[in-house]
């Protein structure tokens, strides 16, 4: 069967943007001969320090700036083509909104620019406001909004047309961690629905959480590009994450490591939650206790029109999410699998290690379960076996 060649959503070949002064003398080359492609369904991060050319690239994608040289196509057309923009949603770095319009009027206005009918605009606006947690402020002028609320309404307007390409410039800027989490969840949801998202952000952790691939720009040139695994995995080092080890087991492990690493540095410590994860735990707990906050509060419900095309209602989606989570096996089970796996091969090491690493977030609860009194001895024996097996694998690796 012949492979189907798909048109990239964004394609740049030799893309260059040179700024010139009044006398047409070159002033600065903001983007210098870059090539990249963004494929359908991809979440891509554009990273770089100030002045690296991120915003210029985004503005060229949106047709606000014209390339000095090179070729740029968006959804197969010129970025200046009006038809192209039907499929684009754009959230600028700051929400340049009409301050005297209320949240509802703002969404209605931007919906009208897509020639949506009045009924459709009203329905979508209601759903989007609910989704971004601004239903209670729908009649307030957006000029009175806090920065976080303005970002939320900006995000809502970017999605009024259910875009297939979403360009988010610093989407989490000005948002509290809860808002950041919601935005990131939304990006992941959009990705699930096959949408393409381009994110520019200075908050690298945000990019790391949601992006499949990143492009790092500096001085107008692409300095690095690839998937996060390609870029972030350190192949020369190993990391093993296990349930809490008893001191004697730790000691044994250290002894094995010392023997095998022969003077090379290594460290053993407790995995840490990120501050964001901890914050979210606290807030979620407070929310369960019905504590109220001022400003915007999480809506949490995905707008129906955004969701329905994914062939599942918001409830079904939540069910799916719950189901997905339930399918994540506890670390003890994986450990047992490792022990029972007679044909354990070294090339599976990285995969299993990643699997263990992915359980990081569930580790604290796992810990409690593992410490049940009637299981302690049995578990300890199993852990010993795991440690032995790992020792063997490390030896093999060293020999290679």
């Amino acid at each position, binding site marked *: 069967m012949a492979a189907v060649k798909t048109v990239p959503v964004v394609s740049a070949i030799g893309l260059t943007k040179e700024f010139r002064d009044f006398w047409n003398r070159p002033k600065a080359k903001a983007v210098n001969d870059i090539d990249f492609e963004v494929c359908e369904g991809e979440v891509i991060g554009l990273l770089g320090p100030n002045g690296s050319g991120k915003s210029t690239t985004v503005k060229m994608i949106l047709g*606000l700036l014209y390339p000095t040289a090179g070729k740029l196509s968006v959804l197969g057309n010129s970025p200046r083509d009006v038809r192209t923009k*039907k499929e684009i949603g*754009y959230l600028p770095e700051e929400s340049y909104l*009409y301050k*005297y319009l209320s949240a509802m009027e703002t969404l209605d206005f931007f919906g009208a*620019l*897509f*020639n*949506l009918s009045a009924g459709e605009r009203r329905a979508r606006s209601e759903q989007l406001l609910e989704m971004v947690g601004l239903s209670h402020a729908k009649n307030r002028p957006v000029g009175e909004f806090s920065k976080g609320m303005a970002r939320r309404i900006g995000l809502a307007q970017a999605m009024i047309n259910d875009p297939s390409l979403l360009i988010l410039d610093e989407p989490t800027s000005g948002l509290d961690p809860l808002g950041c989490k919601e935005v990131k969840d939304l990006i992941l949801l959009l990705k699930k629905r096959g949408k393409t998202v381009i994110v520019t952000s200075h908050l690298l952790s945000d990019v790391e959480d949601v992006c499949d691939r990143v492009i790092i720009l500096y001085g107008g040139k692409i300095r690095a590009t690839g998937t996060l695994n390609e870029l972030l995995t350190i192949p020369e080092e190993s990391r093993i994450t296990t349930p809490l080890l008893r001191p004697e087991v730790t000691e044994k492990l250290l002894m094995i490591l010392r023997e095998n690493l022969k003077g090379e540095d290594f460290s053993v410590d407790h995995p840490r939650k990120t501050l964001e994860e901890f914050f979210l735990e606290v807030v979620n707990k407070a929310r369960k206790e019905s504590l109220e906050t001022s400003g915007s509060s999480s809506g949490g419900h995905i707008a129906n029109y955004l969701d329905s095309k994914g062939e599942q209602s918001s409830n079904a989606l939540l069910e799916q999410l719950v189901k997905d989570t339930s399918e994540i096996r506890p670390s003890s089970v994986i450990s047992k699998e490792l022990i029972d796996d007679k044909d354990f091969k070294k090339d599976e090491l990285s995969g299993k290690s990643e699997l263990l690493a992915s359980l990081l977030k569930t580790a604290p609860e796992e810990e409690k379960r593992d410490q049940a009194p009637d299981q302690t001895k049995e578990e300890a024996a199993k852990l010993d076996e795991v440690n032995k097996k790992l020792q063997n694998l490390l030896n093999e690796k060293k020999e290679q």
Partner: protein
Amino acid sequence: MTAIWAIIKLTCRDALRSYVFQLLLVVLLACIILVPNTISGDGTASGFIQISLKYSLGFVSFILSLSTIWLGSFSLTRDVETYQLHMVISKPVSRGAVWAGKFLGVMLLNLSLLIISCSVIYGFIIWQYKHQKFTAEEKSRIENEVMVGRKVFVPVMPNIKELTREEYKNRLAKAKAEGTPMPEARTAEEQKKILTELRKQILANMAEVKAGEIKMWEYRNIPSGLTTPLFMRYRAYLGKVSSQDQRETGGIWAAEIAVSKDELLKNGQKLPEDSPAVQRIFVPRTPYPEKIMSGSFHEIAMTPKVINQDGVVRIGFQNFDAEGKSLFFQAGDGPLLLLRKCGFFENYWRGVLVIMLRLFVLCGLSCAAASCLSMPTAIFMVISYLSFGSAADFLIGLDSAMEGMPMRDFSEIIASWVSRALLLVIIPMQKFEISGMLANGELVEFYLIGWLFLKYVLLRGMPLFLLGLWLYKRRELGLIVRK
């Protein structure tokens, strides 16, 4: 269409929030309410109505012109400078649609205000006419001279250029015959002065009617077969063209009327046998000199019989000033012949249509300027353009007055050519001024409206509007530095 309509609505809302616009709105309201209630006029009923009409409409037209220029520039530049346009342009709306939406929004707002203001003024004028304690005669005069639409016929003018040259030749011949120094032997500057002076003298002579003298005026292309009266409007200055030292004087007006030969014979006239059956004779309006207040406008109703078969009317005036002073009839003051064509309502709204055209041009110009410039540069650009328009029109007026005069200064020639070049692209807005016409009961002809639309809106305005739109479409909005 939904998108354009959304932009139109947003432009109107945006405009209403502009402090400058709010200020202009207050001034507009003040003009509508205060002007008609504070002016006293010239003491006559028709003068009061005339001045109310002229000043109210003039102020409304001026304020809405300012408002249009401001809003046209403001609505386009503000969105660009605050980056709000980035949000709009990233949606599937063409820049042409954004430009059109802004233009139509500004026009919609200003036209609404114009219609409201003009309706209030119209209502006020009618109310004054009906409720003021005017006599029946005063009301009749207002109906015939102010609240009416009358077509204006100006007297046939001789060729001034030819007359000047002829006079110059005559003087040269006379000087040669008398053996005095020839003007040709003098400097070019002196020759120029002589010609200019001659021209002035000829024009002054044309305007002057010395005591005891008779002056004739001829009007052509007057429709024949009329049943309604013709009106003649004139103003004569006594002694000098100045509003000072004017007083009552005397004179006799006469008009040429067709009278049958039989009738003349019955009245004892002696005519040759081969004379035509219909004779045209000058019939005085009064058998004795009538009193005339110099320096003021007067109107005389005339029978349509004064129009001959060829559509020609001839009238004459004899000066009977008691002190033997001359009377001066300036070219602009007539005597003009006025022929009723429509009522006040129709004529008034024709005038409003001209103001609408004026606002359309100003809106297009300001939007075009704001397409590629920022604030306040765009406003200055439009005001400079309009100032050049007035200056160029003035210079062209001077130039045509001096047409045919040899030995003009180099600077005058340059100014003349620059003015002509400017007027190819510049629209002189004074051509759209109609409040004076309405106050004088002059007909705002469809021909005039069509001519203004074709010449100034389509041929001069539209290319500028399209240039602005083209620049707007090509503009790299991402290059603008945010304010």
